[in-house]
């Protein structure tokens, strides 16, 4: 018996800690237990998935769907959301009788819809044997255990938007009447938009939650002294229906009634602005279609964005016109780290009642529009006031590239060429002549600069010069800074 003699040799493996270090030994033991539990959990999940996959064709029917924990949500609203799924489930005769697979599919669909209402913080789905006394063999209930999110929300913020800054307070009430309606009220004060308020009530209109209806009341007062020697105030009501068709874009149809007022003229205001001063009412119907396949809204490297906007005013009120505006932007990567981006905008306003109002006309120029021109300084001008125009187009081509060896930085460099023109419709000429005139004498600028991604806005610092300009345009040679969301 030579091999066995006390004390016995250590049988631990080399990578295990020795008994001398008790703390280390305890930690190692805990990690080992955790690994074992995780392994058991993973194998349990795997077994469950295996079990489910092998029994997908087991005949099962949904007897009822229960949503528990939704105390602030209306029953009628929940059944409005869930009924289409149930009827789809029961009417799938072509695929054969319902089975576990279709039950799971329905459960997933309902869970997704409930998640989209943004009412619930957590949704747990369970499939249980049916509770009903009259339940047959193979009847199941789907039970959703939910927890609702908080209903009230108040936020104060300072924000940077399109070349302006503002301080705002927002209050939001979720699920106001128990049907995923949202009420939001916002009050803000800023540099260019001196005061604004906005109250909005939105509610879903379709059980798939793709269509929403909105009614809002808004008012704002903007300081236009930098380009039009006046201030514009407006108060209005807007009713809109928005529908998301996925890859086919988002449609919005809305009615708007606005009271606009141009006042607070500076003493140096031109005669044309004085003629535009006063109050007028616009009552209009508009349609917007947006399709966005870009990979990033601020500095996209692939995809395109298209927006079409049409408005017809004249059902009551003073303003009477047809307005159409189109905007598109496309990006394409050329080399690793280098992207080519092309953007174009155009707009057209046709008046039915003689003259157009200042608030409806288009403005052009500035760091977010045609660069190397002062903000809103292009188009018809009287002395130092930009009056706005009825016909415009603008395009921009940019080559964006990463800083060499620092492609992870949010700063990119770019070279740009921008062109555009804003004109008023000359009634003496016909429409085609007006269009041709507008296209034939553009203002063009080139330059280079840096783009900084400062989520959710983009900041640009550019050095550019106007190559061709109209005499009345406000050219800005040299540096120009732009902060905003939509750049040309």
């Amino acid at each position: 018996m030579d091999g066995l003699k006390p004390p016995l040799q250590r049988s631990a493996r080399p990578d295990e800690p020795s008994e001398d270090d008790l703390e280390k030994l305890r930690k190692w033991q805990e990690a080992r237990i955790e690994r074992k539990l995780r392994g058991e959990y993973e194998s349990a999940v795997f077994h469950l998935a295996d079990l489910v996959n092998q029994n997908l064709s087991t005949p099962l029917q949904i007897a009822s769907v229960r949503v528990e924990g939704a105390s602030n949500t209306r029953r009628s609203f929940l059944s409005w959301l869930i009924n289409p799924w149930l009827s789809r489930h029961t009417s799938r005769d072509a695929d054969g009788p319902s089975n576990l697979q279709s039950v799971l599919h329905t459960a997933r669909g309902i869970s997704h819809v409930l998640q989209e209402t943004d009412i619930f913080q957590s949704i747990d789905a369970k499939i249980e044997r049916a509770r009903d006394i009259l339940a047959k063999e193979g009847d199941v209930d789907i039970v959703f255990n939910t927890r609702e999110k908080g209903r009230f929300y108040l936020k104060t913020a300072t924000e940077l938007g399109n070349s302006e800054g503002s301080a705002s307070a927002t209050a939001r009430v979720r699920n106001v009447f128990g049907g995923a309606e949202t009420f939001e009220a916002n009050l803000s004060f800023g540099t260019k938009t001196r005061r604004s308020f906005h109250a909005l009530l939105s509610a879903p209109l379709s059980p798939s939650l793709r269509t929403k209806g909105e009614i809002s009341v808004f008012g704002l007062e903007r300081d236009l002294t930098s380009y039009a020697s006046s201030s514009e105030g407006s108060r209005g009501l807007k009713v809109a229906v928005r529908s998301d068709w996925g890859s086919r874009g988002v449609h919005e149809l809305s009615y708007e009634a606005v009271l606009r007022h141009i006042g607070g003229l500076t003493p140096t205001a031109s005669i044309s602005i004085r003629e535009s001063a006063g109050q007028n009412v616009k009552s209009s119907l508009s349609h917007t279609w947006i399709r966005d396949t870009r990979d990033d809204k601020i500095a996209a490297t692939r995809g395109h964005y298209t927006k079409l906007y049409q408005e017809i005013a004249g059902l009551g009120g003073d303003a009477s016109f047809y307005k159409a505006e189109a905007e598109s932007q496309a990006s394409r990567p050329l080399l690793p780290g280098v992207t080519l981006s092309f953007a174009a905008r155009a707009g057209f306003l046709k008046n039915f009642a003689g003259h157009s109002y200042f608030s409806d006309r288009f403005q052009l120029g500035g760091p977010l529009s045609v660069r190397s021109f002062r903000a809103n300084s292009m188009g018809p001008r009287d002395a130092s006031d930009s009056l706005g125009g009825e016909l415009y187009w603008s395009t921009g081509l940019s080559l964006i590239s990463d800083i060499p060896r620092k492609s992870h930085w949010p700063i990119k460099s770019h070279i740009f060429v921008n062109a555009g023109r804003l004109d008023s419709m000359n009634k003496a000429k016909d429409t085609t002549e007006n269009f041709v005139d507008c296209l034939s004498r553009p203002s063009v600028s080139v330059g280079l600069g840096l783009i900084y991604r400062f989520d959710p806005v983009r900041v640009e610092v550019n050095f550019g010069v106007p190559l061709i300009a109209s005499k009345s345009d406000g050219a800005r040679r040299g540096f120009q800074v732009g902060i905003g969301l939509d750049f040309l």
Partner: protein
Amino acid sequence: MASALTLPAPLQKFFSQFPLHVHPPIPVQPKIPFTKPTIWIAPPRNAGLDQSPDGLLSSEVECLKWQAYLALRGLTDVAVRWDIAPEGSIDGRLPNLHVPASGDADGQLLAAHTIPGWVDVRLGSGNDALEGYKDEALRDESHAWVSLLEGIVHAALTLSQPPPPLLSFLSLGQVTPGRPIEAVLSPPPPTFTGLSSILPPYGTNVSLASVQARYADAIGALSERLGTDKWFLGSENPTALDALAFAYLHCILHSKDSTRIEVTRRVNLVTWERRVRTQVQAAFCFAS
């Protein structure tokens, strides 16, 4: 750019080359062609409804006063437009006079109080210390009549205007132009609540009866002073007081309630107003 920072010379030279090519300025479509002096007034009573000479006279006393002044000073061929809102005028008060200036396509816009100066330059009439009155005593008397007209007669006229429409609180612009009635009456009217009330002072307690009585006295005095003269205070040529009196009398005669009865009783005032009206209307034309 701030003047403290100046561009270095080579950069300035570089910038001066741009833009390389310049298009002509983008044309502005003028709304109404501008060739003669144009007075911007508040809309006449029957604005746009008839092209009669009556449609040239403003319904607001302040604007009509200046119209009468221009006409009585002897100017003719002055255009009239009323499509400009008060917010578009200098200091937010109509009337304004838009005159073509030599060499300036836009012309020059004059506020109401600078109109006499412009008329003097235009007519070449020098500084008249007596302002058209016969002597100093009459000139001083004219100040008293002016304050009477701009006081109690203005208050009576304001009280006879219809109240603003129901939804005017929604509008963003001015609803009632001019001075409030509390500033016009002398002595200023008391408030609804007095010292002994627990409510803080609010509102205005205008006693209609006393205003009417004082107004009747004022019209009676005006009529007596005019008598059978051609112009007030026996002046040979029309003066500023005549313009003011005409403006008030015209507006009172076209008011819708009983304030006009006081004036219609005085025949000499009615005939005087009619005669001056034809003279004033002849000086204006539509700006189309």
